[in-house]
């Protein structure tokens, strides 16, 4: 078991320098934005004195490394500043928006995985038959469609033409689960359709790799049925690469959710960032970048830490 603990320890340790650099990069991105943020806040009519006061307040008169240290100090305490647009604390804004994005992403990826893994296994088992070709063709088509276009089309059909589902807006689960579901179906369905494509292909590819291996033939040579072989021997070994892919997919969705939130007018994290960019609300921009990157790092960490569950060889090395 110590092998496992060392693996976890090492992996955690490696995350720290990465996170530090991420913070550094975000800090510099915002610093590099042309224009004076103080001027933006106060507008054209500000006097020299007002500018100087606000400058000092934001700590902009201090040397850069100092600013970074101060900022890091605040961040580590959970204080990401306040939004320029509406003066709300950035952290609480982020958290409430994150709930929306995360709910949709998690539901979509879970359902997509539940569909994709069996489909991929099936396709690999029946390799080169019509079924396999159909599954691969379908998956490839699905993953080629841009999410915002698919969303628009679904919205058109189900929201406008058929009027089965609402066209825009969002209701949180805590308020009214049934209504919430109605608002979530379309965006979640869009995501599911696209990710099913990606994940099915990955599951199929790794299952094909495993099927070539001799322990599968050995299992059949013992007299196990096809179903038993698939479930007991192929699945655990084929799942590992798919699991890694799920981590990447989750992260990718977090980064690209903005377009979907725009199409379906959802108050999510992506939309927050885009609006903040247009409004030049730099504290929010900074907070979004940092927060999203942090979530992604954590997701990948969890994915990696679960790896030894599928592959006992990993913790040994």
């Amino acid at each position: 078991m110590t092998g496992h603990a060392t693996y976890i320890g090492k992996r955690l340790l490696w995350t720290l320098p990465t996170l530090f650099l991420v913070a550094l990069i975000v800090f510099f991105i915002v610093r590099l934005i042309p224009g004076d943020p103080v001027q933006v806040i106060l507008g054209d009519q500000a006097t020299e004195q007002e500018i100087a006061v606000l400058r000092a307040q934001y700590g902009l008169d201090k040397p850069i490394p100092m600013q970074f240290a101060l900022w890091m100090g605040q961040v580590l305490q959970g204080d990401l500043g306040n939004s320029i647009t509406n003066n709300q604390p950035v952290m609480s804004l982020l958290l409430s928006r994150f709930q929306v994005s995360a709910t949709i992403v998690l539901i979509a990826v879970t359902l997509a995985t539940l569909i994709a893994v069996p489909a991929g296994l099936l396709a690999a088992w029946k390799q080169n038959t019509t079924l396999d070709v159909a599954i691969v063709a379908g998956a490839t088509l699905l993953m080629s469609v841009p999410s915002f276009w698919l969303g628009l089309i679904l919205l058109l059909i189900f929201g406008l033409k058929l009027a089965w589902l609402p066209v825009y807006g969002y209701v949180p689960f805590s308020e009214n689960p049934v209504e919430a579901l109605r608002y979530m179906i379309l965006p979640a369905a869009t995501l599911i359709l696209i990710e099913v494509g990606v994940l099915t292909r990955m599951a199929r590819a790794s299952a094909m790799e495993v099927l070539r291996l001799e322990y599968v033939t050995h299992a059949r040579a013992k007299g196990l049925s096809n179903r038993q072989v698939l479930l007991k021997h192929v699945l655990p070994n084929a799942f590992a690469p798919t699991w890694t892919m799920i981590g990447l997919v989750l992260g990718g969705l977090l980064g690209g959710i903005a377009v979907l939130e725009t199409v379906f007018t959802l108050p999510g994290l992506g939309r927050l960032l885009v609006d903040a960019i247009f409004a030049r609300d730099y504290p929010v921009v900074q907070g979004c970048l940092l927060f999203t990157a942090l979530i992604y790092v954590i997701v990948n960490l969890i994915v990696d830490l679960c790896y030894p569950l599928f592959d006992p060889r990993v913790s040994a090395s």
Partner: protein
Amino acid sequence: MSDKPAMSDKPLLSVRNLNIEGPNRLRILNDVSFDVAPGEIVALVGESGSGKTMAARAAMQLLPAGVLPAGGEVLVDGADVLSMNEDQIRKLRGAKIGMVFQEPMVSLNPAHTIGSQLTEGLLLHENISRDEARSRAETMLERVQIMDPRACIKAYPHQFSGGMRQRIMLASVMLLKPKLLIADEPTTALDTLSQREVLEVMVELTRSSGTAVLLITHNLGLVAQYANSVVVLERGRLVETGPVERVLRRPEQTYTKALINALPRREPDRVPAARTSPLIAAENVSVTFPGAGTAFSSAEPKLAVDGVSLSICPGEAVALVGGSGSGKTTLGRALLGLVPLSSGDIRFRGKAMHSATKAEKREFRLSAQLVFQDPYSSLDPRQTIAEIVAEPLDHVPGLSRAERAGRTREMLEEVGLGGFGKRYPHALSGGQRQRVAIARAVIRNPAFVVADEPVSALDMTIQKQVLDLFRKLQEQHGFACLFISHDLGAVSRMADRIMVMNRGKVVEEGSVGDILDRPQHDYTKALLEAAPTLAITEKMSA
């Protein structure tokens, strides 16, 4: 030789006129027929491409995708396997016919414990409790000589070596007490000593349970030692069949004769070159690798080579023999300066390499060459054969383009690959690639060549060809060479002197005659016994 068990009338396995086709209607097996009687050990012999593996897999309907039987029948206890449906054949698999595969590294599922894989088959075919299954598994593990079966049950495959995994596989298969065991090249991926261990265990288990064995192999030495009868296949056709003694002593077909001819035989000992001052010498050389432990082996830094001293004179051919892990490959590379020494020094032409000048080191580098073991990865797949062989000439100053091309062409002719210049490695067979590797090593007329198990990955008839070629080149060009191998038989035709290595030390050294006829050290004796190739040829000529 093994005793002949009582033969009953009805064969256990009867292959009749079997045809097998691959994709694109490629004929893999053509009208092949043979029988296996209960309790008999039948060897199915052939080189790569003979179709022997497919013939055996057909018996369990385990042919790979795209490969299908195209006529004939395979009768197991009278019932035709090829016409059975999935449910019927699943009852056969494991319980009546068991199969052991070639690659021990991938034959066990890395995600499951040994215990679960051993008991899986038992629980499937027999109505016993988990505890009963586990205790049977432990007993069987003891019989295949695994120490500490209880810990083994809870462990994972990656914690064991190749030889151990193969024995575990055997345990797994024999637990079900099948009537027929199909062993598909079970020991090819192992070194000589492990081979012997695994086969002895296999023969003991099968004999005591009356299981017949279909042993698929290309190694005639094993056939002579363990089988009752032999079936010879060439390119999908049956060439010859009969009792082992008869086929090996009085082969009737040309192909069988060629196979037997390929076995190394005791040639008259070479007249050793006059011993002058050594060309290259190792003085108390040690090489250590940082430790990488698993649960079943030590985790200390590994002393691969332990204080070895040796010397090789110009023109001398020295063989370095040992099992896997003996340190022979490391020593060979250390002699070429490719591996850092933890102590000791190498002397080339009298100069210590430790304190040599850059120019002297360069001269050493250019005069000492290496032929690698794996013909499939030692050639750059993006270069043509001519480019590969000519590349060493980059470092010969003052060579015009015409001279370069000329020398390359000559070298290719010498190794029997004239006209192959424009081809790429992937279009060549293993034996041909190895000849390219040899050409590359020899083209600059080096003073010293190390050949690291250059023929282990090749078929027996090809091995003979490549060994003969190497020997011819060595005699003609006169370079000193260190020939590394785990097979005493292979080196006996090559060497002036033999050195035997075990666990990082040279345990015995002497002329070919001394080592083969009067071995002193236990390890040497064990190696000799485990080299069945020599044993039978001696018996043949008796």
